[in-house]
């Protein structure tokens, strides 16, 4: 058992505040939520102050011992890059714990050897393709939530092909959709069509029902996985993983986008 050693906000130093903020930009690619909101970060502290800057230690944990090593690697590597970019931080150690491949991943990220360098006999390449596939899933789930929002506002399904981003009212659904579009390099201007394919081309009226149906399956899958993972983390470490943002999917309306709703 590992206890949560995240300090209350008031005890954090300025650097630590910035480190936590940086970690909040790192997302679990499968669950499309920040690793801080998922309670994957157990500690982020300054270990050493030198004349040039601070050396930072970050400890991470995951819901199971056998969480997929490629996604675990992405989170450790992204955490490393995010914290290393914080002004005043000159050295970073990201320490994944209680995971079957923790030693390889920690050493591989520290050595900046990439995924293929970390698992030389087992990887057929880097993780760009995997990351892209899951950014697309995240976008599709957000698109479904946005369309659901418009449906609740009275839009008919067949009219959604004409919807523009400007038709989405200011809302968590809009914010999260815009972020995922930016992640994929898709247009984010007001006049851009709302319902698009993965490459940004507008979805035709003929293709719309199928696109939305699949988007719904993606959203259900992502939400279901997040529920499962939060529950397993909570069980594994004996702490409530729902944190202050509220995650009770059983009683909430479908598809709350928790971290964006804050």
């Amino acid at each position, binding site marked *: 058992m590992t206890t949560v050693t995240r300090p209350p906000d008031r005890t954090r130093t300025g650097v630590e505040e910035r480190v936590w903020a940086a970690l909040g930009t790192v997302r679990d690619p499968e669950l499309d939520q920040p690793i801080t909101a998922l309670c994957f970060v157990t500690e982020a502290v300054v270990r050493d102050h030198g004349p040039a800057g601070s050396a930072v230690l970050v400890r991470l944990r995951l819901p199971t011992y056998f969480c997929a090593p490629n996604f675990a690697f992405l989170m450790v590597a992204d955490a490393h890059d995010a914290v290393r970019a914080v002004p005043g931080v000159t050295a970073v150690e990201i320490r994944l714990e209680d995971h079957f491949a923790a030693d390889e991943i920690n050493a591989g990220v520290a050595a900046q050897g990439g995924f293929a360098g970390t698992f030389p006999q087992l990887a057929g390449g880097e993780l760009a393709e995997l990351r892209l596939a899951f950014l697309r899933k995240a976008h599709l789930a957000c698109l479904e939530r946005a369309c659901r929002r418009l449906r609740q506002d009275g839009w008919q399904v067949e009219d959604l092909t004409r919807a523009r981003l400007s038709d989405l009212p200011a809302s968590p659904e809009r914010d999260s959709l815009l972020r995922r579009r930016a992640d994929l390099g898709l247009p984010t201007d007001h006049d851009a069509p709302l319902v698009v394919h993965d490459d940004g081309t507008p979805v035709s009226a003929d293709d719309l029902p199928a696109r939305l149906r699949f988007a719904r399956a993606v959203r259900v899958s992502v939400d279901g996985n997040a529920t499962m993972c939060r529950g397993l983390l909570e069980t594994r470490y004996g702490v409530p993983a729902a944190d202050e943002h509220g995650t009770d999917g*059983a009683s909430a309306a479908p598809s709350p986008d928790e971290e964006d709703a804050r």
Partner: protein
Amino acid sequence: MYTKDGTSYFVVDSHVALWDGSPQNQANRYGKGFIECFYDYHRNLSPKEWLWPLDKFEKYSEADLIHDLFETGHVDRAIFQPAYLSDFYTTGFHQRERALALTREHADKLVLNDAWDPRDREAGLDRLEELAAVDGGLKGVKLYTAEWRGDSKGYKLTDEWSYRYLAKCEELGIRNIHIHKGPTVYPLNRDAFDVADVDDVASAFPNLNFVVEHVGLPRLEDFCWIATQEPNVYGGLAVAIPLMHTRPRYFAQIIGELLYWLDEDRILFGSDYAIWHPKWLVEQFVDFQIPEDMRSEYGELTTTVKRKILGLNAARLYDLQVPAELSLPAAEVVA
């Protein structure tokens, strides 16, 4: 059999195990990590009155299994889905000799599937032939594609040797291929849970039934996408179904998606015993309904759908005899 409100259900638990995950059988830290991971699933999603202590969960007896499935669990027939995990457990996680003896003792209740691994190549093909000659033959196999084998961390169904094994299954009349995806595969940079390889082999072997366990979770959407195109792809509900207790609205969406993308004839009940006890799963599933505010999207679960999912679908795949009074009227039976 389970009866509620005048309707009787023939129950086939399509996913049970007799395992030994005890410390004495753990070959290394991976064996310890694996059973602890199972135990967390058990603790996370079971009602608290159904929780077992860790030592019982690690190794339970034949008597426990018979009692829990058939005496209290409402199960009429149960199918062993073996995971050997030979790199993690000294005598294997699946206890084949014990399961075989138990199946012989309770031939009217238990079905014993086996497993193959394409990395065993020619020798494994020979073993499969031998297995198919035991006790009237094999009806199904369970494949765990993330199984470690020395330096290899998994395989795909589209590997050349996998095709040879599938062809052998067809030749030997082993029609039901259960597939469980895990967190590792070769190459590691690809999504290990991807089910695209199931799509390929389902097209290549239309006479085999491919049952994707855990309905593809954590890739429900990818599973639905291939299952809607391949009529010989099925979904096993193990791991998904206990969500109805702690997360009923999510379970409603999952079952709703499955019924939309597949149909009611291709979804199979499985408890994943001993992770979950079938008694509460069967009882809660019979009582389960899509919440009212979600019915415009997902409709309702009828007793016919529940009877098919709980047992009649698996009975069809495994040629299990269903008592006439528990069968559906001919008009409702899939061709």
